[in-house]
C-alpha cells in the first residue's frame, strides 16, 4: 500500500483488490446540504464479512454517509451500490427489501418510546415475520442476553441510560440477523465495561455470523483494535485508507494528525468560516 495518505482524488479511484469482494461501493459520490458540499467525489469500498471503520472529525459527514448507504438520502451524482444494487435507483419496495437485510444503529438509539425494551427488540420481528409468540420470546431474550440487558426487558426507554439505550438498539438491529450492520458512533458515551462488551459483540457478530460491519467513529483507539480496514474521511473525500496496522504506522501528516489527536495539521478543525479577525471586527458594520 503506497497510496496511504495520498491526498488527491486520483488515489481514491485507484482500484485495489477489495473491489470484487465489496458489499458496499461508493463511486465518485457528491452530496450537498444547501451551498455546502459535504461530499465531493467520494469513493470507497466496504469489504464483505469484514469490520470496516470510517474515521473522521465531527461534522465531516459520517452520519450522512450511512444515510446515503441506507437510501435515506440520495447523492447529487455518483453511484451507491449495496450488494450489487444501485441504492438511489431502487423503488420503495426494493429499498425496503434491501433494508431488511441491513441494520443501522443510530447515534441516539432511536428506540420507540411507547414500547418497552422487549417490545422494541421484538418490533422488527413482529413487523416482518409471522413467528409464534414463544419463538419471538426466545429470539428476543437471546439477543438481549448478548447485550447484557435481559433483566431490563420490562423497562421503558425513558428509564434507560444513554448507553443502555444504545445496547438495546444494537439488540434490535441484530434481531433479524442482517447481512450488514452500520454502527453510528457505537462507543460514544459508554463506560469502559460496556465499551469492552460492545467491542467484543461487534467482533463476535462479525466472526461467528459473518456480518459485514461498518463502524463510524472518531474513537481512534477502539477503531484500531476492532477494524480490519479503515478509512479516514475529511473535506468531502477519502483522505487515507488501509488496514489498521498500516494506518497506525502511517507517516502521512493527515493520518498522524488524526491518529495522534493533534489540533494543528493539514486537516482543518474549524467549520468553514470568514477570517477570524475580520469576523470579530464585523459588529460595527
Amino acid at each position, binding site marked *: 500500500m503506497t497510496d496511504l495518505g495520498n491526498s488527491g482524488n486520483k488515489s481514491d479511484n485507484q482500484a485495489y483488490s477489495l473491489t470484487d469482494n465489496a458489499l458496499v461501493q461508493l463511486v465518485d459520490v457528491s452530496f450537498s446540504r444547501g451551498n455546502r458540499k459535504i461530499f465531493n467525489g467520494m469513493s470507497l469500498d466496504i469489504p464483505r464479512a469484514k469490520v470496516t471503520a470510517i474515521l473522521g472529525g465531527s461534522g465531516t459527514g459520517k452520519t450522512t454517509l450511512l444515510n446515503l448507504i*441506507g437510501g*435515506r438520502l440520495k447523492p447529487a451524482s455518483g453511484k451507491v451500490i449495496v450488494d450489487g444494487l444501485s441504492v438511489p435507483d431502487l423503488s*420503495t419496495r426494493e429499498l*425496503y*427489501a434491501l*433494508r*431488511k437485510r*441491513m*441494520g*443501522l444503529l*443510530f447515534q*441516539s438509539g*432511536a*428506540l*420507540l*418510546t411507547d414500547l418497552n425494551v422487549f417490545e422494541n427488540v421484538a*418490533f*422488527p420481528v413482529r*413487523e*416482518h415475520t409471522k413467528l409464534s409468540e414463544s419463538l419471538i420470546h426466545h429470539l428476543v431474550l437471546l439477543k438481549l442476553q448478548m447485550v447484557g440487558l435481559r433483566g431490563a426487558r420490562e423497562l421503558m426507554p425513558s428509564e434507560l441510560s444513554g448507553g443502555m439505550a444504545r445496547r438495546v438498539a444494537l439488540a*434490535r438491529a441484530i434481531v433479524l440477523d442482517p447481512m450488514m450492520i452500520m454502527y453510528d458512533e457505537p462507543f460514544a458515551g459508554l463506560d469502559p465495561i460496556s465499551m469492552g462488551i460492545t467491542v467484543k459483540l461487534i467482533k463476535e457478530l462479525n466472526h461467528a455470523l459473518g456480518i459485514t460491519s461498518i463502524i463510524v467513529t472518531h474513537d481512534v483507539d477502539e477503531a484500531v483494535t476492532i477494524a480490519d480496514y479503515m478509512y479516514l474521511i475529511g473535506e468531502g473525500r477519502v483522505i487515507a485508507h488501509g488496514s489498521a496496522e498500516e494506518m497506525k504506522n502511517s507517516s502521512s501528516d493527515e493520518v498522524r494528525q488524526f491518529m495522534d489527536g493533534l489540533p494543528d495539521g493539514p486537516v482543518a478543525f474549524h467549520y468553514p468560516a470568514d477570517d477570524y479577525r475580520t469576523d470579530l471586527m464585523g459588529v460595527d458594520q
Partner: protein
Amino acid sequence: MKFLIKFLLSLGEWGIARITRLGRGSQFLFETLTHVGQSLVRFRLVYHQIYSVGVLTLLIIMVSGLFVGMVLGLQGYYTLSDFGAESSLGLLVALSLTRELGPVVAALLFAGRAGSALTAEIGLMKATEQLAGMEMMAVNPLERVIAPRFLAGLISMPLLAAIFTALGVWGGHIVGVGLIGVDEGLFWSRMQGGVDFYDDILNGFIKSLVFGFIVTWIAVFEGYDCVPTSEGVSRATTRTVVNSSLAILGLDFILTSLMFGEI
C-alpha cells in the same frame, strides 16, 4: 417604491411557500390513503389509536355538550316564550345541535384535544429519530404510524359529534323540562316531528365526517412535516389548532350553504 417591491416580493414568497406546502400536504394525504387498506387489515393498531384519539377526548366532549345544551335550553326558552312557542323548545335545541353545534363545536374541541396531541406525538417521534429508525428497519412510518392514526380520527369524530349532540339534547331537556317546566310530551313530540333523518341528522353526520377528515389530516401532516426540534414541534402543534379551527369554520359555511342554502 423600494418598499413596495420588497412587499410584493415577500408576498410572492409567502404565496409560493403556502402553495408548496399545500402540494406536499396533498401528496402526503394521497400516500397515506394508499396505506389505509393495510390498516384495516391490522385493525389492532387502529383500535389503540381510537382509544387515544377518541376515548380520551370523550370527557371534554360530554361535559361541553351538556353545557351547550343547557345554555340552548335557557336562551331558546326566553326567545320562544316571547312568541308563545315554548312548546317548540325541544325542536330548537335538537335542530341547532344536529345541524350546527354538534359537528362544529365537537370538531373544534377535537382539534384542540386530539389534533394537538397527534401533532406533538408524531413531531416528537420525528425529532427523536423514531420515524427514521422505522424506515431503516424497513417499516414504512406512513403505514405503521400515520395511517392508523388517520383512520382513528376519521372514525372517532362522527361518534364524538353524535355523543355531543345527544348530551346536548339531554342538557336542553334538564333546563327546559326539569327547571323551567316546559311540557315534557310537547318537548319530545315536536322534536320527533320536526327533525328529519336525511336533512338534519345525515347532513350533520356528513359534516362531522368532513371535519374529522380535515382535522386529522392537518394534525398528522403538521407532525410529520415539522422541523424536528422542540421549537419546531411546538410551532407545528399551534399551527394544527389554528389551521384546523379555521378550516372547520370555513368548511362549515360551505357545507351549510350546499346542504341547506338556497344560494
